């Protein structure tokens, strides 16, 4: 087995974050990532898609992080953006939004599910997530930028969600959720931090490499793809 390829699946570029997409990609490349997803919040989308020079061996995926309180509007937004993006993230944070996101198989990742006094997940939601193939996003930025009691809260929420994810076999994605260059961490450091926070080494590597790869292969069907379950593997002239 070769070296795993690492991806950062939630990076916010200007106008959502402080730095431009060029700066973030240059830094992520320097850190040794194989690809990042530029996923701005849906209320802060750039006017036009930035034109990026694509260096070899580095991929930039189109993504979006939907922010919407109303579940039926959220489903509408998912339908609107699904076709045009590679990675669709929902910004959770209330029971109804979490539920709507996890019950929709067109969603890829649910970020920040925690609210008030709950970690954001329970057995019902975890089961729904496993059934619909929605991954739970673990984000580094809040962990890095808080200290003391707030960080303790975040870590215990993370542990609770991890336990549920392990029990119901929900996939987990580890991302930086960076809003500036200074929030990005290199893959090795992100792994070390994740392991300190309670993930096993294998889980952490999976959360940064295989799970993102699966999401991309699901959303970027091959050239022979016709519909779900039907695919032309080899075209031969029969006549």
């Amino acid at each position: 087995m070769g070296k795993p390829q690492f991806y950062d699946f939630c990076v916010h570029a200007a106008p959502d974050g402080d730095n431009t997409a060029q700066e973030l990609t240059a830094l992520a490349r320097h850190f040794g990532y194989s690809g990042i997803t530029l996923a701005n919040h849906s209320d802060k989308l750039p006017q036009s898609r930035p034109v990026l020079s694509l260096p070899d061996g580095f991929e930039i995926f189109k993504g979006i992080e939907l922010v919407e309180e109303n579940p039926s509007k959220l489903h509408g937004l998912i339908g609107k953006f699904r076709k045009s993006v590679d990675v669709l993230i929902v910004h959770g944070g209330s029971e109804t939004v979490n539920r709507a996101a996890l019950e929709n198989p067109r969603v890829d990742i649910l970020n920040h599910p925690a609210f008030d006094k709950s970690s954001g997940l329970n057995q019902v939601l975890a089961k729904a997530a496993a059934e619909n193939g929605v991954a739970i996003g673990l984000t580094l930025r809040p962990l890095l930028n808080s200290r003391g009691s707030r960080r303790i809260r975040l870590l215990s929420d993370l542990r609770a969600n991890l336990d549920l994810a392990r029990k119901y076999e929900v996939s987990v994605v580890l991302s930086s959720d960076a809003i500036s260059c200074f929030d990005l961490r290199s893959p090795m450091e992100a792994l070390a931090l994740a392991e300190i926070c309670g993930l096993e080494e294998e889980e952490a590597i999976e959360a940064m490499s295989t799970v993102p790869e699966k999401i991309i292969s699901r959303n970027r069907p091959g050239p022979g793809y016709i519909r779900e379950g039907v695919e032309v593997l080899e075209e031969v002239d029969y006549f």
Partner: protein
Amino acid sequence: MKRLLPSLRAKKRYLAFELICEGPASRNDLIKEVMSSASSLLGDVVASECDIKVLGFEDWKGIIQCSHTRVKETRASLAALTRIGGKRATLHILGTSGTIKRVTEKFLQDHKVFEPKIETESQRLRDDR
């Protein structure tokens, strides 16, 4: 006092790092922040087991020493560093080794530190094409 026998000395790992920071950062500020982030993330007990020391820091590059069994914890606590003297910063570990000589040769000698002004990098990428 008599020096400890080599076989009795604690084994160490040396981490080469580069610092990406908004503004100038002094060695003392760096040491202070590294220690405080380690004790905040790991707690004082584990941080003491890590035996973290900043050995040298010059030109945005440097070497940090830690216990050879606690590299992971050290890495995590260095990753948790977000600010130095009030300025936003990231510490990027270039590699680890068991001797200072090797870590310098392998990672620090011809390493160019990533420019905080990143426009130059993307400019260069564009020029290369």
